[in-house]
């Protein structure tokens, strides 16, 4: 078994999150194996995410990052092992699990024929949440979407603007868990910094965040812990050292690039 704990040996010390790691994990993958179209896309993956932790899965294209998120949402059934959300087996508690999770897909998938308010209203209605315009504006303010754009159809939005609305939706869902798939893809550097701050704020209010990305720099700045995923296997882990505001980018980059080259 390649466990993230084992993979962390030789990496940075992980004392900073010791206390939270001792708590019952909010998200847990245990020896997870996923087979899609006859191909093993995840193999023996194990990690646990404590409450309030920002956990990044870092890997290249096809490493199995998005597959991991879809498994936590119950869209994929493990071929071996399993995943748990708040201590519940995902496959057996799909309704409770999905109620607890806000999911931000990779392509900021919202409806082009609707404006930002209508998109948020629709998805929130599906989730059983009814919020007024003021609450929507508050969330859109937090993601810094220009007020003038909010009433325009999203087919006129840039990728970054769509991403902001999707993030606002994740905020508005007000769930204890956020799953973010390449959340900064398409954002400009300023927007990425804003987003990282926002994610940190959300974690500080107790939300547990699992994000998948291939952005080494971004992951090191925002995550408490990074698991390196390659060809469906965990091959390394990095924790944010105590007293530091980020994980050592060079170490992660070296491991990521070295693994990729190998």
């Amino acid at each position, binding site marked *: 078994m390649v466990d993230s704990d084992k993979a962390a040996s030789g990496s940075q010390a992980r004392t900073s999150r010791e206390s939270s790691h001792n708590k019952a994990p909010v998200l847990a993958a245990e020896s997870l194996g996923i087979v899609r179209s006859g191909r093993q896309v995840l193999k023996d993956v194990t990690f646990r995410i404590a409450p309030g932790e920002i956990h990044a899965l870092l890997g290249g294209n096809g490493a199995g990052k998005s597959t991991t998120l879809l498994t936590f949402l119950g869209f994929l059934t493990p071929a071996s092992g399993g995943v748990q959300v708040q201590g519940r087996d995902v496959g057996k508690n799909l309704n409770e699990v999905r109620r607890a999770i806000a999911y931000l897909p990779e392509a900021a998938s*919202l409806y082009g024929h609707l404006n930002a308010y209508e998109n948020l209203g629709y998805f929130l209605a*599906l989730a059983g949440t009814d919020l007024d315009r003021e609450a929507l504006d508050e969330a859109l303010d937090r993601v810094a979407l220009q007020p003038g754009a909010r009433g325009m159809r999203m087919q006129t939005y840039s990728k970054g603007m769509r991403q902001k609305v999707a993030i606002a939706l994740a905020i508005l869902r007000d769930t204890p868990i956020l799953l973010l798939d390449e959340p900064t893809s398409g954002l400009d550097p300023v927007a990425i910094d804003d987003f990282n701050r926002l994610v940190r704020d959300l974690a500080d209010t107790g939300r547990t965040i699992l994000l998948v990305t291939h952005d080494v720099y971004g992951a090191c700045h925002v995550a408490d812990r990074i698991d390196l995923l390659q060809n469906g296997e965990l091959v390394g882990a990095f924790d944010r050292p105590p007293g530091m505001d980020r994980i050592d980018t060079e170490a992660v980059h070296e491991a990521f690039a070295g693994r990729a080259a190998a």
Partner: protein
Amino acid sequence: MNGVFPIAREELRLWLRSRLAFSALLVFALLLTATSVLTALRMSAEQQQRTGQQALAEETFLSQPDRHPHRMVHYGHYVFRVPPPLSVVDPGVDAVTGQSMFLEGHRQNTAMFADAGAGANLGGFDDLTAALVYQLFVPLLLIAMGHGLIVREREENTLAPLLAQNVTGVMLCLGKWIALAGVALVLLLPLFVMTALAAARGESLLTSAGLIGIYALYSLVWCSLILLVSALVRHRGLGLGILALFWLGAVLIVPRTAVESASTVVPAEGKLETDLRMQAELRAVGDGHNAGAPQFMRLRANLLAQYDVERVEDLPVNFRGVVAEVNEADVTDVLNKYAGERMALEARQARFAESFGWLSPVVAVSAGSRALSGTDLATHHRFLRKAEEVRFDFVQGLNRVHVEQLDYTIDINRSIDTASERLTRMSAENWNVLDEFSFEAAPASERLTRAAPALTMLSAWFLLLTAAVVFASRRIRP
């Protein structure tokens, strides 16, 4: 299930905001309304025209002067099949089976068609009936609008976030189905108006409701099919292709195959062969115009014995009239036998063709629609039988006048003696033997019974497809 109606509402909003979908909907609504109005106007005009022609034909017959009753037998009479009120929706076989018939003694003529001018005014556009638009083109609109119901969400990556909001596949499909079914039911509004008008003109509420019901069921079959395909495929183009192929098969290939195979599986004897067989039997029955023919010798002997006289001149009845009367009955038996065989065979062919409704919902709905509208083959056969009843009654009524009121000796001398000829002219009051002909389609219960197989087939289509949708919806994944 809270998410179902937001999903349906959102789909409707998408269509309203999509210029293409909205334009297509608008064009179809206009086409449907225009076709419905034109069909209604055409069939109303046909109804009025044929009712008028029927009255005129009766008036013409009754206004004939005093004359020999057998001349009136050959003068004949016209009957018209007045289209039933629901023919404004589905004229059915009206245009292909003939709408009027000339009735005369010793013959069963075939139905004739209306004059060409009635159908030529609109350059053939009047052939496009409301029923055809509902059967053929409404599914196309539903395909155009609904083929992307689920697969669009998949292609545009909105499926995962949708399902992540705790929306199940069943809820998603139900919401989408409600949206498409809503459009389909709105498209039934012109039909609702037409059936209401038909009901106001005396059509049964049961058949009117049945007609709306069968088209609603048919539309829902397409909604379920479109949703199923959209849920199963990975690409919109593939879904559209599959649905277009199904439409072609259902609309063109299966109906054509049904007709072709019906004539193969239930073969009909050629008209020439049938006519030859029938003529042989009619020759055996004898010619009623020739009272001296050997076929009537026994009748002659029986009558003489019955009235205890030596000569036919001494009979208290006109022997030529009796021969005409008896011969008419015998000829009619032969004619009815052949007509019955032909109608039974046509009905068997129609039933066989209609059984292809198990393969195509278009075949099922068209059969049910014609049966409920009272414009199917069975209604045409009913017209032929009613017309024959009228023919036989007035011919035999005139023969009875011949038997009872016309002296035999005067009758046989009418060709050589002007005075006798004058005496053979019976009073025109006798022409009142002609009954008024007012054709109506079969009662509602009978038409509903005839539509039952089509309703069963469409129900089976609907249930199977909906079950398949439920099955597929449980397996929807991003």
